[in-house]
């Protein structure tokens, strides 16, 4: 979009910044203007810090040689952590998925970032993903389980199937994240596939001793 379309009366540097923000995903013209005017009112030191952070990401972030996650060095923090369980690899679509799973603090294994998902209608096939690198990691036999954590939609499922076919013959166990009803949702609005998965993956409610004495 031309700067003049974004803010016809804005000075050229302001219009340029609005345009730059507008190019970011999820930022509309109004949000771009708000962010720009917020930056203009910001103290110079904060603005410099912001600019340095943007440049720092571009200058210093690379893909980890092992897992293809974003990293400051050829080996990311997770791959370099010797305390982690090196027999498990969790395969995710994007680096943000690593952040989401780490936030849950329940997984202590390693990761592998595919940087996409098989999407035939968009012309994205297996060779466009970091699958070759995943195969390389499995060659020494130390990994016993690959957890496929692609999104539970059609393309994520297809990618999971492809991974299963690809690495199944290596004798590595391939598992998939459980699918079903999300916490806080209504069964009434669930689609048939979600309900089917939820029923297939149902589990027994653990027995607990209940004290029959009222008020105790």
């Amino acid at each position, binding site marked *: 979009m031309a700067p003049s379309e974004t803010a016809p009366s804005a000075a050229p540097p302001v219009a340029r910044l609005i345009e730059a923000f507008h190019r970011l*995903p*999820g930022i509309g013209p109004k949000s771009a203007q708000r962010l720009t005017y917020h930056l203009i009112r910001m103290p110079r030191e904060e603005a410099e810090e912001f600019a340095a952070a943007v440049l720092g990401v571009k200058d210093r972030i690379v893909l980890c040689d092992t897992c293809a996650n974003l990293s400051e060095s050829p080996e990311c923090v997770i791959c370099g952590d010797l305390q982690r369980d090196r027999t498990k690899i969790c395969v995710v679509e994007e680096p943000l998925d690593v952040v989401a799973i780490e936030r849950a603090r329940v997984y202590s294994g390693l990761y592998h970032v595919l940087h996409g998902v*098989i999407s*035939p*209608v*968009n*012309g994205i*096939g*297996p*060779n466009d993903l970091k*699958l*070759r690198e995943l*195969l390389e990691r499995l060659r020494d036999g130390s990994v016993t389980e690959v957890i496929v954590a692609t999104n539970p*939609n*059609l*393309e994520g*499922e*297809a990618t999971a*199937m*492809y*991974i299963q*076919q*690809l690495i199944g013959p290596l004798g590595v166990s391939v598992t998939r994240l459980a699918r079903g009803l*999300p*916490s*806080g*949702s*209504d069964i009434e*609005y*669930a*689609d*048939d*596939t*979600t309900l*089917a998965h939820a029923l297939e993956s149902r589990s027994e409610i653990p027995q607990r001793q209940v004290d029959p004495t009222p008020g105790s």
Partner: protein
Amino acid sequence: MTSRRPVTYTTDGVVVRVIDLGEADRIITLVTPVHGLIRGVAKASRKPGSKLGGHLDLLRHVSVSVRETRTLHGLSQVSTVNGFRGLRDDLDRFSRASYISEMAERFSVEGGANQPLFRLLVQVLGSLEKAVNPEMVTRYFEMRLLQLSGFAPELSRCVETGVELDPADHLYSPDRGGLVSSEARPVGESALLPASLNTIKLLRFLARTDAGHADEMKVGEDENRQLSRILRAQVHHVLDRGLQSEAFMDEVRARPGNARL
């Protein structure tokens, strides 16, 4: 007098494209019977608790409420008519269904009602779920789509001379949209594809059968290859280019049940 469409309406549709938008929204493209291709935003559909997300996935036949705007429409109140589960746990069927849905999308236009195309899409996705011969169901879709779009291949007469064809091996010209007698070699013709007598019989059968009978067809390897080349070349010619999903479909077909890089 022209009647104005309502601002909000409910329609059936098959989801043929999904693009992430912003933090949690998606742009959904649907092939619908009355309104043609519809592009709309499903707000917050990527959030786990969304009422829309599970329904608005690729290759789902849904009923959806559409609120028209000048740009992208708003989508709400979605329910699944048919989730085509059989396409979701088989890589070969998934790859073919992707190819079929991309073709349906490319042959559709926004606002252009096309009930026969919609019915064909729903019927073929349903057939593909349980098909014994998914290859022939795919060929059937190509043939029917060409017919419905006014590009039915000429299979009785030579497109060069107009003479009725003998029961023999001939050639197929995607540029001219039909069979060319083996004796009539058109001048300056670049792509002529071989069409054996058996392939011609199969093409004629596909032109007048339904998906169920196409699924029951027994086809040899050579005829299968010729059929595929002829119908795909004809689709390419009509669309002026190939389809994105073809590469993956071919890859899966070449190594069934055995993915390799």
